[in-house]
């Protein structure tokens, strides 16, 4: 297990390094990095001063070394808008996004397992065809559109739910989570259905039935456990994709998370904050990939075995 974990960390670190270096290269490739940090109205003296203070006049390898040091210390400079430390701003915004994502994924996985299993139990029945159509539609609705139509119907017309903001009871969670939920739910239902149909026609299910196991035990004990592997992989990928949705949802509902921070810093040209937000998200996803792999290994013994070269 230790060897497995070490290998996984090593191979997951490559994408992380790729993003860290990618941000560095992009910032240098596009011309003078000072252009990215300072507003367009900055004078020549301000630019020269900023350049010297942040080491942009040094050689590229020296800059890269400084940059890596900053990344390790989570020191990304100050925000142009607020003067706060960029790293701090991102860390404050982070829990809001994390809560939203965690709640969404838990609901999505549980609901998808339920709906997908029911659909797979009788393939091509009316229930199956209805839930497949529902899942396909859910996976193809543009989330930003779903959000504003939701606001129009439940916020403005019916006045059941608040249109935005984070002050209030549990009702503030409903629309943001529903918006984030649709795509992962739609995709997962299709995956669960597919792997459950395969699992339910496997020989071990026949054996379990002939030994007199109850239907519930056959479906949830035998079939579901074996169908979990692809579901887990896709759920991991979808959690990564949830960052895309979080940017949209947080912008629409004014949720003070990392996605809103990213868009605000793009629209107001605040490179220090954007860089901090992107890199911290990258680290989180790196950690998430490892968690998914470990969960994988715990469920499926075949994954644990070290690969023979």
């Amino acid at each position: 297990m230790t060897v497995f974990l070490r290998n996984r960390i090593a191979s997951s670190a490559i994408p992380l390094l790729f993003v860290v270096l990618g941000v560095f290269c992009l910032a240098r490739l596009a011309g003078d990095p000072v252009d990215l940090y300072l507003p367009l109205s900055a004078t020549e003296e301000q630019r020269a001063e900023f350049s010297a203070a942040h080491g942009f006049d040094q050689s590229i390898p020296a800059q890269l070394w400084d940059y890596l040091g900053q990344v390790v210390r989570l020191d990304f400079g100050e925000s142009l808008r607020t003067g706060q430390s960029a790293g701090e701003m991102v860390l404050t915004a982070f829990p809001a996004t994390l809560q939203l994502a965690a709640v969404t994924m838990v609901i999505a996985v549980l609901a998808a397992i339920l709906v997908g299993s029911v659909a797979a139990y009788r393939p091509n029945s009316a229930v199956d065809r209805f839930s497949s159509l529902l899942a396909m539609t859910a996976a193809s609705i543009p989330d930003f559109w779903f959000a504003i139509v939701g606001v129009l119907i439940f916020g403005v017309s019916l006045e059941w739910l608040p249109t935005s903001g984070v002050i209030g009871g549990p009702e503030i969670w409903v629309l943001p989570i529903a918006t984030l939920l649709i795509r992962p739910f739609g995709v997962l239902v299709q995956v669960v259905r597919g792997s459950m149909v395969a699992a339910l026609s496997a020989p071990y299910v026949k054996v379990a039935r002939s030994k007199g196991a109850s239907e519930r035990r056959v479906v949830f004990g035998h079939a579901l456990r074996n169908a979990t592997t692809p579901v887990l992989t896709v759920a991991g990928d979808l959690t990564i994709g949830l960052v895309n949705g979080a940017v949209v949802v947080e912008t629409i509902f004014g949720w003070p998370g990392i996605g809103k921070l990213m868009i605000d810093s793009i629209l107001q040209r605040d490179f220090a904050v954007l860089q901090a937000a992107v890199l911290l998200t990258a680290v989180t996803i790196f950690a998430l990939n490892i968690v998914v792999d470990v969960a994988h290994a715990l469920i499926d013994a075949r994954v644990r075995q070290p690969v023979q070269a």
Partner: protein
Amino acid sequence: MTTTADPATGSAPPEGAAAPPGARPPRWWRLLGRDWAAAVAATVLGAVLLVALLGPLLIGDRAVRQNLDASLRPPSLDHGFFGLLGTDVLGRSVLARLVEGAGTTLSVAVPAVLCSLVVGSALGMWAGFHGGIRESLAMRLADAILSFPSLLIAVVVLYVFAPSVGNLVAILAVARIPVYLRTARAESTELRSRLFVDAARTFGTASWPIIYRHILPIALPTLLTVATLDFCFVMLTESSLSFLGIGIQPPEVSWGLMVAQGRQYLQTAWWIAVLPGVAIMLVTVSATVLAAWVRLATDPAQRWRLTLPRKRRGTRPVTPEVTA
């Protein structure tokens, strides 16, 4: 070499095919006609393509022409054909803007999907065919790109470089390469040990001709299915980026941008924001439905299902053991 298995025409059905030997499989449009959902989806996509190509000739400058007297008119037939879907706050026809937006949206999504399809498939088949270090290199590259949200890459790139159609296509193409790379690699690793590949190799055929003549025809249906499905994803990402203000920039028109522009008039003029969203959904749902159909129709072992009436199709689940 006329007997090379070619799933597109099915001249030699591979193992597992239900059709009697020698019988020609039904033409694809006949299969399409039997499945009404797929037929509707194909019609919708065809209509959108036609509108995107020919529409601009019919609408002239109506998508950008302002007429403040006609501001925020609700959908009705009173103001001619272009008033059918109402007008926005500057009095521009929503119908004309939808047509214009269809062109922009497709001009981003289609090149992006084609680029990633070609590059990703070529790289994947090459990696799978050779194996070894070339395979691990390609797979690490795919992992690296795929393990980060496309929007994250897009926001940095669009911050550093200005948002434009060209940059959008480039980002979306790069972000989706891994999907094709993985699929193509999986297919070609399996195919490289087949007898006909061995035979070609024995005759001294170089690796690229083998990939082109023997691996590509078999991998292509799967890759096309992935591409159809991926078209949805690319379209949704483009409209999200445009909605957030870092994609297509005004005065150009895109469906995502139209939703963003209509958002502040949502309470008074719902049609400005709601209709472009319906258009996006119509196209993406159609592409998903069509992808499901293409997956069946291009698989010689599954195609017979489409010749049955819909009710009887797949009542007995296919067990993976039967074909193995």
